């Protein structure tokens, strides 16, 4: 469903071009969980942001192909990209506290992707709330009504990240991109979030692009893995292949 081909991202640091990501090729199939693993600076987050249409800085140039079911995400207009963001691609960020607006209640933030398309979706306030509550319950927020009416600082870190996942899922996107979604959380909460994502993938068939520097997390959730280093893809394969028979020295170093 998603094809990334020859992706190259350059930025200009004091007028000198610097390559952040180069020659990145991979495919995400329907219903698959693909992991991208690499240390910080490997370009994994940049790749994710480019797919989600979030790299719009003027000092960046992007080239290559990012194709989501026939739509070229790199060369679409801003309006077309906005239509896809939150609708066909959901994005979950690393730090749930900072990625929530502190002065808005959780509910409106979960609903926002719907509210933005209110006219097109033709949903009433009550219907949007109902969908939001259902989505929140589906990611394991049982106390959904209370959390809906809470402010971000009033709920726990795990609840926040679940709410952020719910916010990314309200419009049932085909692809969910998770950029280090468990890194800012306790180990016990990490496990629960991974379970939520796995369950979601199994029940709805949503494809997931899971980005992490943590190989044990990748191993626990992904079907296939892409290993990145210094903006390049080092190795790609199924979780079993990569973990049991890493062909590249760098991957071996990451594992051990």
């Amino acid at each position, binding site marked *: 469903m998603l094809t990334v081909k020859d992706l190259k991202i350059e930025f200009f640091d004091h007028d000198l071009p610097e390559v952040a990501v180069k020659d990145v090729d991979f495919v995400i199939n329907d219903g698959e969980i693909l992991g991208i693993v690499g240390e910080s600076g490997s370009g994994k987050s940049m790749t994710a942001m480019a797919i989600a249409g979030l790299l719009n800085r003027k000092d960046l140039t992007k080239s290559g192909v990012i194709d989501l079911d026939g739509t070229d995400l790199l060369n679409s207009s801003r309006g077309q990209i906005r239509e896809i963001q939150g609708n066909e691609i959901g994005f979950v960020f690393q730090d749930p506290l900072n990625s929530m607006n*502190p002065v*808005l209640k959780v509910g409106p933030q979960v609903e926002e992707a719907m509210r933005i398309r209110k006219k097109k979706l033709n949903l009433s306030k009550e219907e949007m709330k109902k969908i939001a509550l259902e989505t929140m319950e589906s990611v394991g927020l049982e106390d959904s009504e209370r959390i809906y009416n809470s402010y971000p*600082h009033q709920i726990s870190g795990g609840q926040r990240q679940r709410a952020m996942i719910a916010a990314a899922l309200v419009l049932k996107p085909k692809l969910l991109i998770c950029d280090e979604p468990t890194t800012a959380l306790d180990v016990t909460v990490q496990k629960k979030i991974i379970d939520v994502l796995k369950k979601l993938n199994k029940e709805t068939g949503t494809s997931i692009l899971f980005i992490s520097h943590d190989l044990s997390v990748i191993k626990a959730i992904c079907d296939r893995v892409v290993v990145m280093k210094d903006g390049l893809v080092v190795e790609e394969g199924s979780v079993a292949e990569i973990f049991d028979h890493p062909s590249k020295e760098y991957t071996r170093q990451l594992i051990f």
Partner: protein
Amino acid sequence: MGKYIIKKFILLIITLIITSFILFLIFELVPGDPVLDKLGTRATPETIAALRSQWGLDRPFFVRYFSFLGGVFTLDFGVSYTYGMNVSSLLKEKLFINLALSVMSLLIVIVVSVPLGIYLAKHTGGFADKLMGPVNQTAMSVPSFVLGLFITFLFGIVFRWFRPGGYVSYKTDFAGFLYFLIFPSVAIAIPKIAMCIRILRGNILEEAEKDYALTAYARGNNTTGLLYRHVLKNAIMPTITFIGMIAADMIGSGIVIEQVFSIPGLGQMLVNSISSRDYPVVEAEVLMIALFIMAVSFLTDMIHAMIDPRVRV
């Protein structure tokens, strides 16, 4: 929220009491005796004692302080030493003029700087933004009284939009009074507008870089949606705090500006009553100014709490 309001209100009362005490103490400690000042060369021990008991100065410090404090809540500050009139009736009109001037300046600051700050943040690096840099710098560095002179010259003498020195009393013509006040208010407001614009623009740009803004973009927000649904509520807070702080400055600038525009406000009287040691008048004036400042900061605290749930503790 209710709890927060009550807490802030109690704090306001405590601040008021502390301020009134310090104020009263200061005038107790300043050298100079209003009785001797008033009697001058005609002073004899008898007349001194008589006047002292007439003004109630023979009573102990704390008795006088508590009668003053009681007066704070009933707005009865006793009788002026110089004018022999009730202080409240003496100051009522002048206070109203200064308050009107300050409130009008504050309103002008808000009405002009908020939309402009938003506009400039939205069009960063555009022509208006580039032009605004030096304009802002200039507006910030020119003192209000100079602006007052300039406005008098330009709008009073060249354009004849108002008659310089032609103050209109609010009792005879309220609309005319407000119209006349626009010009001094603008003189007070211009430097503050420049500061507010800079603060607001900077904060909007800073907030727009934060993680939650990126999250909002990832949901399909456009720039306008991001600005009004997310960023503005967070970015406006330092500006509100700043507006609360400049309220104090407004009174100070007002006292100078009223001289430039020949407005019969507090300024002249404040200077006169200090030099003639007319303590009831000075104390009432300073306390009223302090009360105004406290009221504005109370108001900004309330607005803060309304916008930011984390403040309401």
